[in-house]
């Protein structure tokens, strides 16, 4: 029954029941009034009948006295007659004036005869005319017969009236029974509707309860239910001394799946992961989704860290099986953090934090599983501190750039520099890029960091330009920047702000940044190209090395990874790769840039291979900006 049907039924039942009850009440009232009227009428009829009976009795008494006096005229016979003379007149007068309509007519007709009879009886008593006694007897007889007839007719009328009243009451009873049955039916219907509503409310309440405690996407328990169960489990664990474990599972590279394949695929993946997690644990365990790609598994009575670790490994194995999403087969992996109660903590919230720290440790160390210990906590805290400090460093401009020159391979003329970020930590000293760049990438700081570097590099470029040196500058661009369509606009603003031609800026991108979301990356790169900015594919040969991208995207240079370049003179394989890559670049019309050049032989080999530009310690190590001008001057002088 639909909601509206239910409401309509309830309304009909309510209206029907109201009408039914009103009908029942009306019938009861009618019945009562009718019974009262019947009683009143019957009482009136009885009253009349009684009065007629008394009249008849008075006449009989008078007639008996008359007969007695006819037999023997004595004082004993005269007195009763005297007493009875006119004794019925009051009753007759009452009936004439206050009786029923028929009583009035009959009494009015009888009163003259009764009065005449009274006169006759008085004559009898007076003894004036003995013949009057006979006449009085005939008068009495007439009166008796007429009154008897009236009483008989009245009895019949009463019987008839009662019969009619009984018939009417029977009809009323039938109507009352019908109304009662109808009301009973309506009460039943009403009850069914109410029960239906109650069931619906209970179902809704159960649904609400479920929704309040479960994740809508995966159907797993949510954070609230996890907290509740964990609280109970912790109490039980402490009471029975049965250690429990809390596992936090986080998927690796889920964001890439979400970004590249869309949220729908991401949701499908999360559902499959939820199923796998549920299959991997016992029925008594609880799997919850904490949000995003983060899950928790509560293992009551797990006993030991080893057991918990085994479960974690089982979970990782379950996750490791290939996932097919809309025809695409993906391989996913996860990181699991394990915390135990009561050894790690007797508090549910704290246990959750500890498992989270362990999970981050596993992720950081790429170990798959990590069991919480206090040191992890410290490391985790250090990590968090580093993130915060890096954010502050970007905001406060504590980062600075070193510039590593690049030169034409054939002439050795400097053709630009690559800007490399450095972090001068207030306490830790100089922090290397390979230490803080991953932190920036993992914690969403790579975009502000990239903008910061571009801004600083362009400012420096402008300064060199103002000093008479036109030094093109290259900046490494974080992969995340290529997924934001507003990035070209930001770069355009910076170029405009520093008043430099866009060609002086080269943005170095990695293939992996393109691969994760090619469509958006292509759109962003197109925007950058339209600005006039030069584009370079960094570390070419180490990643996907997709030739199709070289063809479809309008990049300007290919940067050969140092791992091939550094040993090309001693490793034939590397040499072959370098030669192939340089040839590839030339064939696509790209400028080939080799980094990691650390000796003359390599430089010579590269030049011979046709490489356009070299970069490396052999040319110069990365230099502070203020040293670049001097270096350039020296270099220019040396080539002069």
């Amino acid at each position: 029954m639909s909601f509206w049907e239910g409401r309509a039924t309830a309304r009909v039942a309510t209206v029907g029941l109201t009408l039914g009850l009103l009908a029942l009440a009306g019938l009861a009232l009618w019945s009562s009034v009718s019974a009262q009227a019947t009683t009143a009428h019957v009482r009136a009829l009885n009253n009349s009948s009684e009065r007629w009976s008394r009249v008849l009795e008075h006449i009989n008494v008078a007639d008996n006295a008359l007969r007695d006096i006819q037999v023997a005229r004595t004082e004993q016979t005269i007195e009763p007659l005297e007493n009875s003379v006119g004794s019925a007149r009051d009753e007759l007068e009452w009936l004439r004036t206050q009786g029923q309509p028929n009583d009035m007519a009959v009494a009015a007709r009888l009163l003259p005869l009764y009065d005449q009879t009274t006169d006759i009886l008085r004559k009898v008593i007076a003894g004036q005319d003995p013949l009057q006694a006979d006449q009085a007897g005939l008068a009495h007889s007439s009166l008796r017969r007429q009154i008897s007839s009236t009483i008989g007719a009245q009895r019949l009328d009463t019987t008839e009236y009662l019969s009619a009243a009984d018939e009417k009451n029977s009809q009323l009873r039938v109507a009352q029974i019908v109304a009662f049955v109808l009301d009973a039916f309506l009460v039943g219907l009403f009850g069914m509707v109410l029960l239906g509503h109650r069931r619906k409310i209970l179902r809704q309440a159960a649904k609400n309860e479920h929704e309040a405690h479960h994740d809508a996407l995966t159907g797993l328990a949510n954070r609230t239910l996890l907290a509740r169960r964990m609280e109970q489990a912790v109490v039980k664990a402490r009471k029975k001394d049965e250690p429990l474990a809390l596992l936090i599972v986080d998927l690796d590279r889920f964001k890439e799946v979400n970004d590249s394949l869309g949220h729908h695929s991401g949701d499908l993946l999360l559902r499959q992961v939820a199923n796998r997690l549920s299959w991997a644990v016992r029925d008594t365990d609880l799997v919850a989704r904490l949000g995003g790609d983060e899950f928790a598994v509560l293992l009551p009575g797990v006993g030991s860290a080893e057991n918990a670790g085994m479960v974690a490994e089982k979970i990782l194995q379950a996750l490791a099986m290939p996932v097919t999403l809309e025809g695409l087969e993906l391989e996913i992996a996860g990181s699991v953090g394990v915390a135990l109660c009561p050894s790690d903590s007797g508090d549910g919230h704290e246990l959750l934090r500890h498992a989270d720290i362990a999970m981050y440790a596993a992720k950081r160390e790429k170990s798959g599983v990590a069991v919480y210990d206090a040191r992890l906590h410290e490391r985790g805290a250090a990590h968090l501190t580093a993130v915060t400090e890096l954010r502050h460093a970007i905001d406060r401009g504590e980062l600075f750039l070193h510039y590593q020159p690049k030169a034409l391979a054939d002439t050795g003329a400097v053709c630009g520099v690559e800007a490399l970020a450095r972090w001068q930590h207030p306490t830790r000293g100089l922090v290397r890029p390979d230490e803080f760049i991953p932190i920036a990438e993992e914690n969403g700081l790579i975009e502000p960091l990239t903008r910061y570097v571009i801004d600083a590099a362009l400012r420096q470029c402008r300064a060199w330009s103002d000093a008479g040196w036109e030094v093109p500058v290259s900046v490494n661009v974080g992969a995340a920047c290529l997924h934001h369509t507003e990035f070209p606009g930001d770069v355009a603003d910076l170029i405009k702000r520093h008043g430099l031609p866009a060609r002086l800026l080269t943005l170095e991108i990695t293939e992996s940044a393109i691969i994760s979301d090619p469509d958006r990356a292509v759109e962003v790169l197109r925007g950058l190209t339209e600005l006039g900015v030069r584009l370079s594919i960094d570390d070419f040969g180490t990643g996907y090395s997709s030739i199709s991208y070289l063809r479809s995207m309008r990049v300007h240079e290919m940067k050969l990874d140092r791992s091939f370049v550094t040993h090309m003179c001693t490793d034939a394989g590397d040499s072959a790769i370098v030669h192939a890559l340089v040839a590839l670049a030339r064939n696509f019309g790209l400028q080939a840039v080799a980094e990691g050049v650390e000796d003359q032989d390599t430089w010579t080999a590269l030049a011979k291979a046709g490489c356009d530009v070299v970069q490396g310690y052999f040319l110069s190590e990365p230099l502070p900006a203020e040293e670049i001008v001097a270096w350039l001057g020296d270099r220019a002088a040396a080539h002069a």
Partner: protein
Amino acid sequence: MRAAALLLGLVLLSGCGGAAKSEALPHVGFVVKRTGGSFAQEMTSGFHEGVGRIGGVSATVTGPPGQDGHKEVELFRDLTMAAKGGIAVATSEPALMAPSIGEALTQHVAVVGVDMRLTASSKVKLHVGNDNYELGEKLADELMRRLPPDATGTVVVGNTAPGLAGFDDRADGLRGRFAEKLPRVLVLGPFDTQRDDEANRDAWQRLVAANPNALAFVGTGDCDGVNLAAIRTERSAKWLVGGFGVDPRTLQAVRDGAMVATISPEHYLKGAVAGWLLARHATGAAALPAGWVETPGLTVTTANLDQILHRQESEKARKDFFQPQIDSFVEDPASWVRPLEQAR
């Protein structure tokens, strides 16, 4: 002979139908209060005349030979089984008859009250009878015509059936008319003068003895006039006698001058009207009307005595006499019908 002639259980076929067809004919009945009276003969003849006018209806007339209310009831109940077309009832015991009439109506047997009114409880919707009050007035008028306008004295009234509505009404009519026209005349009674002929004569003897100076003696029943006329003749009295009915002795008393007038209730006409209506109803031609079909009475004095005597001589004479009235009724029955509540 008379009783034998009163057609107890008589079945007549109207028209030229034979006995073989009688079973298939609608059947109506008539219960009279006493088959031994001249009024019963009159009503029976009239009833058959009325039924015969419709044709194709059989009729049964029955009643106790003497005054016997319980026998009346018994005969009525028996007739209910046979006369499904309807029954006319001229009873002297309306209260006694009422339950049986109710049962008949329950069995969808139509009932018509004739002459004396039935009780309201019987639920009978049609009454065929005189305006008895008016009959009393007519008799009073005839008596007063023979009294001086300033007459004083006593008029003694007797009633053979006190408590029987029609007879009470006649007495009331007498009393009312005297009170209206000759208020100085005292109307004594009505005394109970009994139905039985001997008892009636005895009652009148006593009343006459008690009222030797009365102006007139009047009775509501058929036997009253006959006995009063006889007593008057015996005593060579001068008082006036008035009565009701067309018993041959009554008509003789009128002829002899012993009675100044008698009022005929015209029982033949009542029987004819009841028979015609019931037969018409039994054939399904028309439903019984509801109300009071008032049939007129007739004052019989020396002025019209010969005509009445001739009428009473034979069945044919009676039939011829009433022919115009019956024709008038049959032509427009509705015009004869008055509200039942007005019946008196």
